[in-house]
């Protein structure tokens, strides 16, 4: 049985506790995040504001010249609603300066560059503001590899990484994220008219059900087909998960010593915390 209903109040407590705990363990009191105006980053901002107080949350809006005006408007709505701190840093000059050298670059390269440009700004602001970078990637996109490695996938702590997109929307609604943000079509907004679902080739509603059974409930591929999912769809989803495994791991280290980092030098991240 697939039940994406949520005990939102308990989840809210667990996630705000996670943020407060993670930020303080790292020796910070503030957090910084890239606020796109989409539901994921909006929810992260809501959770952060509740965990740390709005005065300790910095939202950085980083539009590119082709970014949708809606994105900016929705991000402003969140900033105003929460009373969090914000800065707007245009990435157009940096990104365009780079691609002057590569005028033929396709939109994937351009999109990745934008995501990584934003990452460098967030981590610079982490140092500038003494604030921890809060992640906004959800479980669906992490599993599908639908994100830019060292770009939007980069963060210090991520409260959303174990929640499917379907669950993100539910929790966002519970937390009071404006409905216009929850209802709009999800988009990475890396080029005009882009939507996640068109690019992926399926809807989040569909793929979340398959991912939930495959990952959380450990259904094998034949089990999923037997459960009524189209075999080609199931295989396409599995292929994405498999092909993007490298994005969910640290860079591969050639193992030559008697004790290799991560393989048999294993310490918790919260070591001594």
């Amino acid at each position, binding site marked *: 049985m697939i039940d994406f209903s949520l005990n939102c109040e*308990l989840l809210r407590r667990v996630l705000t506790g996670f943020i407060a705990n993670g930020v303080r363990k790292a020796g910070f009191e503030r957090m910084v995040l890239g606020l796109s105006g989409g539901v994921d980053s909006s929810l992260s901002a809501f959770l952060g504001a509740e965990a740390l107080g709005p005065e300790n949350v910095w939202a950085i809006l980083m539009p590119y010249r082709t970014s949708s005006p809606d994105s900016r408007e929705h991000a402003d709505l969140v900033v105003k609603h929460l009373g969090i701190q914000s800065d707007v840093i245009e990435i157009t000059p940096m990104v365009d300066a780079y691609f002057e050298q590569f005028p033929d670059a396709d939109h994937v390269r351009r999109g990745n560059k934008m995501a990584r440009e934003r990452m460098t700004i967030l981590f610079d602001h982490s140092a500038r503001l003494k604030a921890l970078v809060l992640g906004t990637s959800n479980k669906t996109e992490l599993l599908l590899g639908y994100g830019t490695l060292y770009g939007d996938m980069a963060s210090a702590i991520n409260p959303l990484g174990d929640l499917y997109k379907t669950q993100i929307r539910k929790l966002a609604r519970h937390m009071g994220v404006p409905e216009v943000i929850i209802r709009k079509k999800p988009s990475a907004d890396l080029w005009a008219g882009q939507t996640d679902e068109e690019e992926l080739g399926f809807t989040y509603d569909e793929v979340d059900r398959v991912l939930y059974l495959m990952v959380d409930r450990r259904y094998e591929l034949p089990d999923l087909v037997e459960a009524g999912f189209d075999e080609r769809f199931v295989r396409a989803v599995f292929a994405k998960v498999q092909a993007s495994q490298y994005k969910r791991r640290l860079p591969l280290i050639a193992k030559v010593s008697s004790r290799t980092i991560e393989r048999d030098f294993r*310490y918790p*991240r*919260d070591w001594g*915390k």
Partner: protein
Amino acid sequence: MSRHTIALAQINPALGDLERNLALHEKSAEEAISRGVHLLVFPELSLTGYFLKDIVSSVALPLTSLFIGRLRDLSRRIDLVVGFVEETPEHLFYNAALYLSKGEIQHVHRKVYLPTYGIFDEQRYLAEGGRIRTFRASIGRSAILICEDMWHPSTALVASLDGMDVLISPSASPGRGGLEEGKGFANARAWETINRAYAQLFTCYVVFANRVGYEDGACFWGGSEVIAPTGEQVAKAAYLDEALLVAEIDHDEVRRARMTNPLLRDEKLEVTMKELERIKREGAR
């Protein structure tokens, strides 16, 4: 006297910091003493934190260590159950819990079942205990079963047949799964079922001390509880928050439960032994 005031310290230990955790123990103990508590139960690995990985050897302590000595001293004023990594003279490391009373170690339980699946990886770092024994405590004949030990009913059955009146379960359970509308973590619900079932089936008190806090993103859910031999809840701590849960247990409740439900009297050790021996002989396990 059949009534005893006990307390469960639902604390948030630091990961791999013995001194900070000892201070936490002393603080809880002082509060418990001021509230007239006789026995204070701490969660699993309360002196070290749970997801230790390679920290294990750095925080391991022999029973003779000065550090344990400080807890022994504290136990002159209040009985304690504390969790730590025990290092034997052979340099084996155990996930262990001590019962300390009157300045002495009254009992050591070494966790028998080391979960090594899902989020858990204990067998990589720790040695398995091989004994399930009850011991005499002032609250009644007791057994300590650490966390995963409780998920194997054979441990509780053995302890029951060995005379257990009070089942003490120090735990470090991270909340996983579930969280559907109106529900808590799936494993928290399972724990609550197990605690009540064991209390009723073995007509004993169940004292479940779980921790709170986060380690590497995992959230320990708390919800420590004391269940009476009737299966009724005597006391319950909040989920997720630190707490000192004080409860009264009454040994006469064990007596009354065993008169109402003489399950222990009727337990057929011979049949169990015979069938277990057959199963072993036939190689089914």
